[in-house]
């Protein structure tokens, strides 16, 4: 009985499966699904691009602001340096020394002591370590690279590695 039923049902199932596969609405859904997938992918890429671009723009604006801040800081530093030099100028220091009761030394008042191992001061060295300058070389690519630039770089490096 069971075998007979099975023999009878198999053609029907195959028929239904075939009908399901060739149903027009199913093909339409596949098309719609594919198109939606493409749209979602494009939307994701666009969103990512917008996020990256906006971040780069903000970073760029910060760089501009920081560059301006550096300029202002340098101006302030220069002003303070000049002010300090004015306050410690030869005439100002002499006036302050006299006010404190000091007077210029006479040659006869000098006493020289021989200090073993003492060496005279070396020549004046004004140079310090070179400052790190803000330039294209010091800004990470993430702050100035577009998404397309990034993809191009990755693609080039991939090709290069092969």
């Amino acid at each position, binding site marked *: 009985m069971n075998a007979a039923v099975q023999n009878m049902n198999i053609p029907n199932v195959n028929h239904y499966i075939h009908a399901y596969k060739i149903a027009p609405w199913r093909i339409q859904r596949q098309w719609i699904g594919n198109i939606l997938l493409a749209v979602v992918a494009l939307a994701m890429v666009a969103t990512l691009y917008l996020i990256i671009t906006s971040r780069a723009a903000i970073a*760029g*604006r910060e760089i501009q602001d920081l560059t301006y801040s550096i300029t202002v800081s340098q101006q302030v530093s*220069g*002003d303070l340096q000049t002010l300090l*030099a*004015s306050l410690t100028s*030869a005439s100002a220091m002499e006036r302050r020394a006299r006010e404190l009761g000091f007077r210029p030394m006479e040659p006869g008042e*000098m006493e020289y002591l021989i200090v073993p191992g003492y060496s005279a001061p070396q020549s004046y060295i004004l140079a310090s370590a070179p400052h790190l300058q803000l*330039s294209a070389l010091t800004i990470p690519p993430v702050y*100035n690279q577009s998404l397309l630039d990034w993809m191009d770089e990755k693609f080039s490096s991939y090709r290069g590695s092969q």
Partner: protein
Amino acid sequence: MRAQYARRTQVLAGVMGFIALAIIVQMTRIQNSAEADVFRQQAENYAYELHTFYPNRGEVYDRNGRLLAGNKTVYEIGVDLSAAKDAHAIAFAVSSELGMDYNQIINLIQNPPEGLSYIVIADFIEAQQALNLQELKKALQEQAPQGTRGGLAGLQFKSHPQRSYPEDALASNIMGFVSREGRGYFGIEEKYDTLLAGNPVQALVPTDPNKAFEIPRVPDGTTLILTINRDLQAAAEQILDESLLVYSAQGGTIIVMDPRNGELLAIAAARRMDLNQFWNYGVIYDNASEFNPAISKPYEPGSVTKILTMAAALDSSTVTPNSTYLDTGSILIGGVNIKNWNQEPWGVQNMVGCLQHSLNVCMATLSMQMGAGTFYSYMDNFGFGHLTGVDMAGEAAGRLKLPGDADWYPVDLGTNAFGQGLTATPIQMLTAVSSVINNGRSVTPHALYAMVRDGRQYNVPAQYAGSPISEQTADTLTTMLAVSLETEGSLALVPGYRIAGKTGTAQIPVNGYYDSAQTNHSFIGWGPVDDPQFMIYVWLERPTASNWGSETAAPVFAQMAEKTIILLDIPPDVIRQQLVAK
């Protein structure tokens, strides 16, 4: 029904597709149209701003790192006419704060030059004054009703650097100054103007923040370290000022140099100006040579030249220190009778006596014995008539007439031997005599110790201008000069230190004749003799307190030498020799 819907859908899709295609076609057409370049150009105009970046002018320090010339921020104050709301308020505020004429400002704002949207009211305004105006503008803005602009809207402030000299007039003759246009005049500022100023960069600056990395980096001008010692400079100026008063001199200069390497430690000039008020230049100086007479004002140096005549005579083996001659008090050369400074004969003298008594007849005799060829060859090698190459703007070469020149006469051979009839600047005299101190080699005087650029310091090596005499001649002459000063009991002597040097008193030619009432007094000396660490040149112009340099310039030298010894920490000879012995 389904077929009808399908047809409608197809038509709709076709219409939409057609519209999309039309948009794409139109976009492509516009991109490639004749006007596309114009549009692109307009877009680029807004994408970039042409900007000139002026680097900060390099600073100048003395040899101990004390700032001699720096930069400070000043402001340009202007009005954006499109944003200005109340011209009267702006004119009132600016005129009150800056002390400017109200009517002039209001007229400028209300009747601006045609085509201008921004006008400059004042420039080079001190930071504090600009800050006061900025705070007033801010306060008025806060008081203004919501959504309206304050009374000083449109008033704008642009900062920029200005040269500043913290020491005011100190070393002004060495430094020179910078005009508001940024150009250096005189001294170091002019000589090293290109280095100090740096290179302005003109660049298109992107307004697009994504291109912030394109903002150009403009390196500052080169920073200079001078050989000048600020404290020694201040002392030299103070001593010179006092000397001008004490000896009633019209002018003068004092130079202190390290004879071993030509480093100039101090150059004092009688007239100095506050470099922060450089516009007073025309009031202070009558001509450019007065700015730094040490390098720019040739004069007849007189008897200090006898050092060089004696050097030439010794080096050419014309005489030795013990050679003697009979001084009769006069000698006839080229039809002109040359006499000693006191018009008296000095009898038999050796060469030390010649120097000690500063005998003109002796020197004229030596130059005659050497002959014009030898004598002028030595004078030329000593640098007379040539620039020394000192690194300050405005150096003059002086004049050494030579046989064959239209204005050279045979008597010049005699007078030139004691420093009359030729002209030289004090710096030329120092350079020439440095050969006597420096084993026969003359040094090139210089004021630049080092340059600092991009965090690296480049020290300037000593340069030598030649070897006009031998080492033996230099040693012999130094001893002769030291002995002559000691025997004479010169006022130039410094207790505890052996000094060598020579006084000079030179009559000044007026209208072609020497005026005995007008003289220049000079002294050149150095010490300690066994290890020379300084040489000093003193020149006093037309002092009236005394007729002789031995009574004016010599004590000024001693005063300057004592100060130099203290400031350079030079121990007395006895202690120094103990140190060497150990």
